[in-house]
């Protein structure tokens, strides 16, 4: 048994059952999956991806490069490090052979996101981070402290309870300070501009199946800080030697952490291979816990203190030596030693655990993401932050503690407080550093030997698959691979990364990236400083897709917009269509005589007939509506639209078109003049936001001198066109005070009138060619007015209709729909609407483009009508128009395409609209529509197929 009977931060009174690779085990609260496996004597955890080699646990934290597992219960999750999974009852996992497996069923968990703002954000609750947070908290600042572990302490958690009373006191003070938020199990994974830090909080993962259904499993914290203090610590790095990937080869600090935090003695005969003094603490503590420990150190000048300590606890020390290889299969059984650096006097020593330390890499990921500059420190063999990014008035980013290269505990404590004082000073707050707790004399006082790999013949000859000197364990990438990259001519670390794949795996090279650079630098004889690092990118640690998606899924992936009349549509059996974010009735199928429902063609035939011969009504509330006010509103709109708007009188309405700078139609709609200084525009439903943005851009950046204000009023108005030859009677019935005669209320005018007691704006405009009244009321009253019109229309058989009928009616009249009959390459002239382009105005958006060579071509595409020769054949929307039905020779010259196509009751058959090259010159010609191999003969007509003379609009 490798679990000690006492010690550690685990709760031995509670037993948690779990299963790994199909076998049952037990652990305790406080364990990670990795510590529980080690406690059960399980070292082999995974299998390497390409070479199938056994792999074990090499670290005790997020930097783990080897122990990758697949969670199977309570819900499958691919590829997690065993070192980051808190143990829970019923956990089922298995070791991974390099690739994870997605669940085959939907994830039932909830995820969410939350915003928090603070003066000072401290990342990392180790000694430096706690001092920083405490200093800022006592200064009265709003502080957020995040840490990935379930408890504060950071590196102290791997010690024999060092400063544990102090950390408990600090935590108590922080959590009882109102303006301080301490987030544990929370990993800051991304630094974005202006103090925007993203963090992932694992809220229920540690509860396993006991996690409450109603709590979000994981939460993204969107933290916005004025000052950021990064106390992110450091990762120990290994030294590379042959067969360094065997289970039982572990980082020295990990071995110490398993002992002190989890009460696990991971081996009985332990060999510690270190190039620096930091691993001696681990050696001594493990020896004191009962292991037989040997230390191998390539240096010959041992620190007297550690030499004495080793002697005291019976550790054999082999100075001037190195590890050149290991033996064993499922677990390390022995180590090959040799003199350093000559390689002579080799020997093999038995062991069941090999702890390695090659020094420390400050965790500079977030600092680097913040655009902080790194500089190579040759003594530490690591890249360090070049001071912070302090700034008054802008977000300061400071690094402290081990992340800044500070080695001693006292230094980390003092540094954390000092950086907080500096950050507060930039916020204009004078603060005093809090007093650090007393600590003993630090015995790690000097930098170690920088050693990336034990000396081997450094040649550029390349390698073979027998190379077992692994640099990146997850990618099975070796020293030989790095040398091969250098031999291939690669000189950039980014190229080496791509050539070898080092640093691209789950751990993103936390322990391997720098070593690859070091080997490269040695091989090429260049300076590490010049070689630099690969780029640090978010996320610092892996984040599930679902956490990032948060709540914006399913029905609320995108807001559903419905009109004020929506419930009526549902009650009356409407079928809906998505138009942008809106739900619009497509049609209102009725029950047929046989008890079924009308299909779309039948419903549309009925609805169009009603509009052409009786009266029908539409919910057009989704039309974009923009209120334009200001003394220069008319001038502004003159510059935006192709036609003149400023001459419009209050009480009148005008159809208008706006173009992009390329002269292509952007949108169309009506402009209603409310007063000298107020207009209401309509836009197409899907374009409303885009048009408002467009107008705002011109108002704010091009013509800021114009006094004009723009407000979206789309949702403030319900819009109900009442359409058909009997619409006048219906409007007269609901608005008895309104003179609805053509003389008093002519086409393209609007009137205020009361309908069902509601003040309405009624416009005589028509998108169908029929006599029509568009009723606009505040949307609060939309459904009441709709119902009133519907009731008043009953004697006339009033029929609600949907978008499909609207499309048929407008297409019969040749009215284009922007976005369906146009595609951003169509001018007003192409649509046969030269009349909408003012020749008098000096300028308007798009005018210049109308005189370009391409716009003046006589053979541009024009909007025309198409009548299939067989009027029972419905053209496919999107069919290509060709002149010659023989398509055996590709490519075929295409003249244009069918933009709209419908069956028409009024026209007695099918018809279409199309954009056709020189279309207006081809009227009367026979062409062909090609759709998926089918060729349909068509006759070209003008676009207006119904009531060409416009006799019906006045009723």
């Amino acid at each position: 048994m490798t679990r000690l009977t006492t010690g550690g931060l685990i709760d031995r009174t509670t037993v948690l059952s779990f299963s790994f690779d199909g076998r049952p085990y037990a652990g305790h609260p406080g364990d990670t999956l990795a510590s529980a496996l080690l406690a059960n004597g399980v070292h082999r955890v995974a299998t390497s991806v390409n070479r199938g080699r056994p792999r074990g646990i090499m670290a005790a934290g997020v930097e783990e490069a080897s122990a990758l597992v697949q969670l199977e219960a309570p819900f499958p999750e691919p590829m997690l490090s065993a070192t980051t999974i808190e143990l829970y009852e019923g956990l089922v996992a298995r070791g991974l052979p390099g690739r994870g497996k997605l669940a085959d069923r939907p994830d039932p968990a909830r995820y969410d996101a939350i915003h928090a703002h603070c003066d000072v954000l401290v990342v990392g609750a180790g000694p430096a981070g706690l001092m920083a947070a405490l200093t800022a908290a006592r200064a009265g600042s709003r502080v957020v402290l995040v840490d990935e572990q379930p408890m504060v302490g950071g590196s102290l958690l791997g010690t024999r309870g060092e400063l544990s009373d102090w950390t408990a006191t600090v935590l108590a003070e922080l959590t009882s300070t109102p303006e301080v938020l301490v987030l544990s199990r929370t990993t800051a994974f991304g630094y974005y501009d202006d103090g925007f830090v993203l963090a992932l909080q694992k809220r229920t993962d540690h509860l396993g199946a006991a996690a409450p259904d109603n709590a979000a499993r994981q939460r993204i914290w969107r933290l916005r800080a004025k000052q950021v203090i990064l106390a992110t610590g450091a990762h120990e790095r290994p030294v590379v030697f042959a067969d360094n990937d065997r289970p039982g080869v572990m980082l020295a600090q990990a071995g110490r952490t398993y002992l002190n935090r989890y009460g696990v003695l991971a081996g009985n005969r332990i060999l510690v291979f270190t190039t620096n003094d930091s691993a001696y603490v681990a050696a001594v503590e493990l020896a004191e816990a009962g292991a037989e420990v040997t230390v191998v150190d390539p240096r010959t000048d041992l620190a007297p203190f550690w030499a004495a300590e080793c002697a005291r606890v019976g550790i054999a020390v082999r100075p001037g030596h190195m590890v050149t290889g290991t033996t064993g299969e499922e677990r390390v059984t022995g180590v090959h030693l040799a003199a350093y650096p000559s390689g002579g006097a080799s020997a093999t020593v038995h062991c069941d655990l090999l702890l390695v330390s090659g020094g420390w890499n400050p965790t500079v990921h977030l600092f680097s993401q913040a655009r902080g500059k790194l500089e190579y420190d040759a003594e530490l063999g690591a890249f360090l932050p070049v001071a912070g990014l302090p700034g008054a008035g802008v977000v300061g980013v400071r690094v402290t503690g081990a992340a800044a290269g500070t080695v001693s505990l006292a230094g980390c404590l003092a540094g954390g407080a000092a950086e907080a004082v500096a950050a507060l000073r930039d916020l204009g707050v004078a603060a005093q550093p809090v007093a650090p707790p007393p600590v003993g004399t630090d015995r790690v006082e000097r930098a170690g030997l920088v050693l990336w790999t034990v000396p081997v013949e450094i040649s550029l000859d390349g390698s073979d698959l027998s190379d077992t000197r692994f640099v990146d364990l997850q990618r099975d990438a070796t020293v030989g691979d790095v040398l091969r990259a250098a031999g291939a001519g690669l000189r950039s670390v980014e190229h080496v990364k791509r050539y070898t794949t080092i640093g691209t795996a789950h751990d993103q090279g936390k322990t391997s990236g720098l070593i690859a650079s070091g080997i490269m630098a040695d091989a090429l004889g260049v300076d590490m400083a010049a070689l630099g690092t690969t780029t640090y990118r978010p996320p610092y640690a892996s984040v599930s897709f679902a956490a990032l998606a948060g709540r914006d899924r399913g029905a609320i992936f995108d807001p559903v917009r419905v009109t004020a009349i929506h419930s009526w549509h549902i009650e009356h059996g409407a079928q809906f269509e998505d138009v942008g974010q809106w739900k619009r009735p497509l049609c209102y199928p009725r029950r047929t005589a046989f008890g079924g429902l009308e299909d779309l063609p039948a419903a549309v035939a009925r609805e169009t007939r009603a509009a052409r011969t009786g009266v029908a009504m539409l919910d057009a509330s989704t039309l974009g509506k923009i209120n334009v006010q200001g003394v220069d509103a008319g001038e502004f709109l003159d510059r935006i639209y192709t036609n003149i708007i400023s001459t419009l009188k209050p009480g009148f309405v005008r159809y208008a078109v706006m173009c992009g700078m390329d002269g292509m139609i952007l949108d169309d709609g009506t402009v209603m003049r409310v007063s000298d200084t107020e207009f209401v525009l309509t836009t197409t439903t899907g374009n409303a936001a885009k048009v408002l943005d467009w107008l705002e851009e011109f108002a704010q950046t091009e013509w800021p001198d114009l006094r004009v204000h723009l407000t979206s009023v789309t949702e403030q108005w319900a819009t109900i066109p009442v359409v058909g030859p009997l619409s006048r009677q219906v409007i007269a019935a609901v608005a008895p005070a309104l003179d609805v005669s053509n003389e008093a209320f002519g086409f393209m005018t609007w009137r205020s009138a009361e309908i069902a007691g509601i003040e309405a704006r009624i416009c005589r405009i028509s998108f169908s060619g029929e006599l029509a009244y568009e009723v606009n009321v505040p949307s609060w009253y939309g459904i009441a007015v709709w119902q009133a019109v519907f009731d008043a229309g009953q004697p006339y058989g009033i029929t609600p209709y949907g978008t499909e009928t609207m499309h048929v009616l407008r297409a019969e009249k040749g009215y284009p729909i922007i976005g369906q009959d146009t595609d951003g390459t169509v001018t007003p002239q192409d649509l046969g609407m030269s009349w909408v382009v003012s020749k008098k105005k000096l300028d308007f958006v798009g005018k210049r483009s109308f005189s370009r060579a391409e716009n003046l071509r006589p053979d541009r595409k024009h909007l025309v009508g198409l009548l299939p020769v067989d009027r029972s054949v419905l053209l496919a929307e999107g069919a290509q128009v060709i002149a010659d039905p023989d398509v055996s020779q590709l490519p075929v010259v295409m003249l244009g395409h069918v933009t709209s196509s419908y069956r028409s009751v009024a026209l007695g058959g099918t018809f279409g609209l199309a954009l056709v090259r020189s279309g207006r010159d081809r009227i009367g010609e026979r062409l062909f529509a090609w759709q998926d191999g089918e060729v349909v003969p068509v006759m070209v007509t003008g676009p207006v197929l119904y009531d060409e003379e416009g006799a019906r609009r006045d009723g």
Partner: protein
Amino acid sequence: MTGSTAVPQHPEFLWRNPEPKPSYDVVVVGGGGHGLATAYYLAKNHGITNVAVLEKGWLAGGNMARNTTIIRSNYLWDESSAIYEHSLKLWEGLEEDLGYPILFSQRGVLNLAHSLQDVRDSVRRVNANRLNGVDAEWVDAAGVKEICPIVNISPDVRYPVLGATYQPRGGIAKHDYVAWGFARRADELGIDLIQNCAVTGLDVIGGKVVGVRTTRGDIATGKVALAAAGHSSVLASMVGLRLPIQSHPLQALVSELLEPVHPTVVMSNAVHVYVSQAHKGELVMGAGIDSFNGYGQRGAFHIIERQMSAALELFPIFARAHLLRTWAGVVDTTPDASPIVGLTPIENLYLNCGWGTGGFKATPGVGWCFAHTVAHDKPHPYNAPFALERFTSGALVDEHGAAAVAH
């Protein structure tokens, strides 16, 4: 034992690292995919080998290293489908031509439709593709499910899948391998690939470019071919040339290695995500550009969050996949979403830019055509429609398609 995620090894030797010579016949500015392909075809097709490719950073480290490697040719307009189809045909023989395992996988590309207008646009494009000799078909939602079983085609989602266009010959390749394949061949043919060499000026005498100034010295040259993607405007401004280009960040991301679940490439403009599963097993994903302009190779986080929402709408089984890395390239967008490839008002200065989000798939095709343009001082027929003048003549090739939604 060799696992299924193993990808072919790179060759023992890739390229020399020469010092720049005092002069070249042609200097290609930009050592990305397009620049390297151009250099290769200059040598291979036109026998022009006294060529330098100048790269300010590391070879193929810009958008070539940052894209999501999607290859297709199913563009709407004749001009576009011609050059992209030319490129696709070259892709089909590229592995052999370059003698490099570029992992070109014709696993098909689905472009999903989520609204009736999407359907109209899709059908239109399929018909145009077919008549242009480009393989394309319209498949309904059930057909989508057949091609890619993990797509959620339930009608009960916010924007149901109504169908898709499908190009079976589309697919993916491994971007670094492609770039390095071109680079290695170019190097073999005697072309100097010069890295860490930023262009700081262009020497123009009498309306004719005669040299480039670089951080590694001045270089005299007969011709200069610009292939610098997002930084093209910066280079062009050195000779007073204003380009109708806006540079934006475009982000992409990758998951851990996963067992195969996704057999094809799925793109959705409406729900705004595109995703494939690369050879080793990672999900590779992208979305739309960040809206702000900039040259920083980093984007905003909400774009990633939104993209993940979209991805999970389409692929619910991705829920517990993990994001490992995000990054951004700088894409050069034009007003008509089509590239600019051709001559410039300055003699012997040639321009290839404006590929926006779609440059990777064009790599061999544009390399071929741009080399032709430089060698003959005249555009190849495939890139003739993509001249800079079209922004004054109005002969745009607008691939935005119908941006609006119907009434």
